[in-house]
């Protein structure tokens, strides 16, 4: 034993704290060491002297004065209220719990809202149809989009309030006051701060930035652990061996966190998650999806608050029972949420292929809910491509087979079943439905009653955005006929059947449609991007056959006019033997042979002021589509056809004219008269203004030559004459 050790030993011995086994060694050293004996004597002497030090002890009055001073000191403490306010959030469990619920709840709600608005709603806005169990009005949610500033603020709030309720102000206060820290308190405070990280980073999770979320959580946790260790090492009474053990214990989680941070870089990002979300939205009712997400978010909130409550805050007390209740509630919610999430059956796309060219993707939430799409409409959703052998669900395979092999009854049954059980949103379905019929503007014509019934059921059961304005109709009529020319039947002529709407301007409307189509076809042909034929509605187009025959096989009831498409431009058939307005009802309509006027067979009569003798107000002008004669009510216009062109025979006069404004009190029309050279009337014929604007009359002079006079008479409205053609027949 050295002298230093001996001094420490007899110091402890004086205090009665020396273990008996050291007593003998000390005595032995004392016997041999004069210096230590002297020191021992000094120590005993000074110890006695210290114990005998006089102290001023206040009497009863002093006690009273002390009490009053202390009470007054508390009352007049300037910082008393502030101190209480600062301390209350981490020292009183109710404050702690309330503030944590508020801050964590805010950030959780914002993250949930952000994920719904940012990820679920776009799936709805892009969908063609939404099932009844889908979200009714996705656009209304757009106003709830949380701003980035709000999310950032909520994260900052979580960190601020979280650090406060964990007792960081108390810890910092003690550090400032140079007090010794207790390792346990430091550890629990830091553990509380660690738990805040996953919540503060929740906005990243709401944006599906999983990699950033993992990285931020790992870094935050590492930072808290290192800070905690530093505080314990420098500000807490901790023996060196224990500190070494602490250091080793710190390295293990840090290594784990580094691994987690690296692994999180591989986690999927928003682009990878989007298809999965799209499939979820398609296959799961919105209420189920939002319900499961809400329950899981609530579970996270309760578990977070419960765990934070279980970790003691700095100098905080109480609240364990409430935290336990929160934990139990959170575990309950978690279990319920997992069960609910497990009950969701995301559709797994199934690609069925009949040949290299024909394939379809089949989606199904359950066996009772098959849904299939043409591959072109479903290209964006190839999340999981599984061969038929890997997914044996019979219903899905039957539907796919029915589509590819065109087993129509089975296919229609599958579609009807899907409409009944549709869970979410639909993409590409309208393209598929269109393949069942023929589209003509807003009208979708379905040739069979079964198809009509199925598509009608789909529209009725779904909030169908694409087809909502569609008029379903069945084709119950047909129009057929043949075109002839002087040199025989005409093959390869392209015809258009134009719908003639009701109303005064029926012909103008038809003309406008024709001109629009013509312009469009011209542009496409000029650009070379598409065949002209492709630009036109095939259901209303026909090409004459070898005998000049043509057929429009599916024509819904209504009124039509026939147009002939020349190579250069489309025109109404007023230069042909006009069928006029074609009335289609149930059943076929067979038109009389249409004889084309070719070349010298006919000529358009000029609509200029020199050729016509007029009474009343008649304006002659050049419109976009050629000359127009506009005759005010009561006006007449007369022309004498040169007799050189009209020898004995028959004339066919074709009129393209419309009358504007009001019903005609006085019938408007065309009057044709043939006069002999001596001024007698040989023949006369009238053509009332035709309903469709197109009219034709024939007049014959028998075997005599004469003059042909054509008179146009306007009625109560303005008559607009757009074309007048004379054909001299043999």
């Amino acid at each position, binding site marked *: 034993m050295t002298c230093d050790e001996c*001094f*420490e030993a007899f*110091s*402890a011995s004086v*205090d009665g*704290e020396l273990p008996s086994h050291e007593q003998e060694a000390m005595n032995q050293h004392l016997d041999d060491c004069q210096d230590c004996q002297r*020191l021992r004597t*000094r*120590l005993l002497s*000074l*110890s006695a*002297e*210290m*114990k005998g*030090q*006089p*102290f*001023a*002890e*206040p009497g*009863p009055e*002093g*006690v*009273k004065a*002390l*009490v009053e*001073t*202390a*009470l007054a*000191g*508390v009352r007049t*403490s300037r910082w*008393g209220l502030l*101190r209480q306010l600062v301390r209350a959030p981490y*020292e009183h469990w109710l404050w702690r719990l309330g503030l944590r619920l508020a801050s964590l709840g805010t950030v959780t709600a914002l993250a949930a809202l952000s994920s719904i608005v940012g990820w679920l709603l776009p799936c709805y806005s892009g969908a063609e149809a939404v099932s009844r169990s889908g979200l009714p009005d996705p656009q209304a949610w757009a106003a709830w989009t949380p701003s980035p500033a709000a999310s950032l603020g909520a994260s900052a709030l979580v960190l601020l309030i979280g650090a406060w309720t964990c007792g960081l102000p108390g810890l910092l206060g003690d550090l400032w*006051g140079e*007090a*010794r820290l*207790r390792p346990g308190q430091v550890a629990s405070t830091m553990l509380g701060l660690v738990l805040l990280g996953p919540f503060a980073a929740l906005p990243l999770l709401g944006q599906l930035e999983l990699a950033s979320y993992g990285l931020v959580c790992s870094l935050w946790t590492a930072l808290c652990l290192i800070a905690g260790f530093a505080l314990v090492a420098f500000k807490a*009474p901790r*023996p060196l061996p224990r500190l070494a053990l602490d250091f080793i214990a710190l390295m293990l989680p840090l290594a784990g966190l580094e691994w987690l941070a690296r692994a999180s870089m591989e986690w999927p990002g928003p682009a990878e998650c989007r298809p999965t979300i799209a499939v979820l939205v398609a296959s799961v009712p919105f209420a189920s999806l939002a319900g499961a997400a809400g329950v899981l978010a609530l579970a996270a909130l309760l578990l977070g608050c419960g765990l934070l409550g279980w970790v003691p805050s700095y*100098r905080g*007390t109480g609240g364990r029972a409430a935290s336990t209740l929160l934990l139990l509630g959170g575990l309950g919610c978690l279990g319920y949420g997992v069960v609910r999430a497990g009950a969701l059956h995301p559709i797994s796309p199934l690609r069925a292929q009949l040949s290299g060219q024909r394939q379809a993707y089949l989606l199904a939430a359950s066996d009772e809910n098959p849904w299939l799409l043409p591959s072109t409409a479903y290209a964006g959703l190839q999340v999981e491509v599984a061969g038929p052998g890997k997914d044996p669900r019979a219903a899905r395979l039957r539907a796919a087979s029915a589509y590819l092999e065109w087993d129509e009854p089975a296919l229609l049954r599958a579609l009807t079943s899907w409409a009944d059980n549709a869970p979410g949103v639909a993409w590409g379905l309208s393209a598929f439905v269109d393949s069942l019929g023929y589209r003509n503007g807003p009208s979708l014509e379905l040739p069979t009653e079964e198809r009509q019934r199925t598509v009608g059921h789909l529209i009725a059961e779904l909030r169908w955005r694409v087809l909502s304005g569609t008029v379903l109709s069945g084709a119950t009529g047909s129009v057929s006929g043949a075109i002839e020319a002087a040199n025989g039947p005409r093959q390869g002529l392209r015809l258009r059947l134009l719908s003639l709407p009701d109303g005064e301007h029926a012909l103008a409307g038809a003309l406008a449609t024709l001109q629009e189509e013509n312009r469009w076809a011209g542009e496409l042909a000029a650009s070379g991007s598409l065949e002209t034929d492709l630009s036109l509605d095939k259901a209303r187009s026909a090409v004459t056959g070898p005998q000049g025959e043509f057929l429009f096989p599916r024509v819904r009831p209504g009124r039509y006019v026939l147009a002939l498409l020349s190579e250069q431009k489309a025109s109404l058939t007023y230069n042909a033997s006009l069928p006029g307005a074609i009335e289609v009802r149930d059943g076929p309509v067979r038109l009389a042979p249409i004889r084309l006027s070719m070349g010298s067979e006919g000529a358009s009569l000029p609509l200029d002021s020199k050729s016509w003798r007029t009474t009343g107000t008649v304006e002659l002008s050049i419109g976009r589509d050629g000359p127009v004669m506009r005759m005010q009510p009561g006006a007449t216009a007369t022309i004498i056809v040169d007799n050189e062109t009209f020898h004995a025979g028959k004339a066919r006069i074709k009129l393209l004219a419309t009358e504007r404004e009001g019903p005609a009190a006085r019938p408007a029309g065309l009057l044709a008269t043939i006069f002999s050279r001596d001024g007698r009337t040989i023949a006369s014929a009238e053509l009332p203004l035709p309903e469709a604007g197109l009219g034709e009359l024939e007049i014959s002079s028998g075997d005599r030559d004469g003059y042909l006079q054509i008179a146009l008479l306007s009625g109560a409205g303005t008559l607009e004459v757009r074309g007048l053609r004379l054909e001299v027949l043999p």
Partner: protein
Amino acid sequence: MSVALAYETTVMSAGLAGATEKSEEVRRLVLRLQDGDRTAFEALVARTQRSAYRLGYSVAQDHHLCQDAVQDAYISVLQNIRQLRDPSAFTTWFTRIVINRCKKLLKQKRPQSLTEVVEQGKGPSTDGLEEKTGRRLQLKKALLRLTDTDRTMLGLREVQGYSYEEIAEILDIPLGTVKSRVANARRRLIQAYDV
């Protein structure tokens, strides 16, 4: 529990049964004070002020400073008594407060060296009890030459008579550290006294 025992008795002579009784009384007073009974505070002060003064004077070696520290300590007790989880640990808690207050005030007054004041022969007032002998003055000088920590160790051990275990609990340091610190404080006191 044993801290309170040491607190209210002359440790060297107190019996265990009596100490337990005193400790229980302090605990009840703390409970009443935590419930808002201000009359309990007066009783608590009467029970504890003597020990507080002795300890404060041991650390500060200045009567006025000791008074201020004890007064601050009682204000702190009133402000924070509700946060004391275990009322039977009051004595440990209160002793720690007194020591911290003394150290804080000493730090604030450090520029006016107490050692110099003593050596100039002015001697701090002890409220009528002047240093009567040269030995006492010599002891005071020696104590003032020590660090706050050494005086705290000596005050807790020599004056208050706390056991090493109690000191470890009060100062929140390991038992072995207490043993060595007490011995070192004593060694330095001897050296300072013999200078």
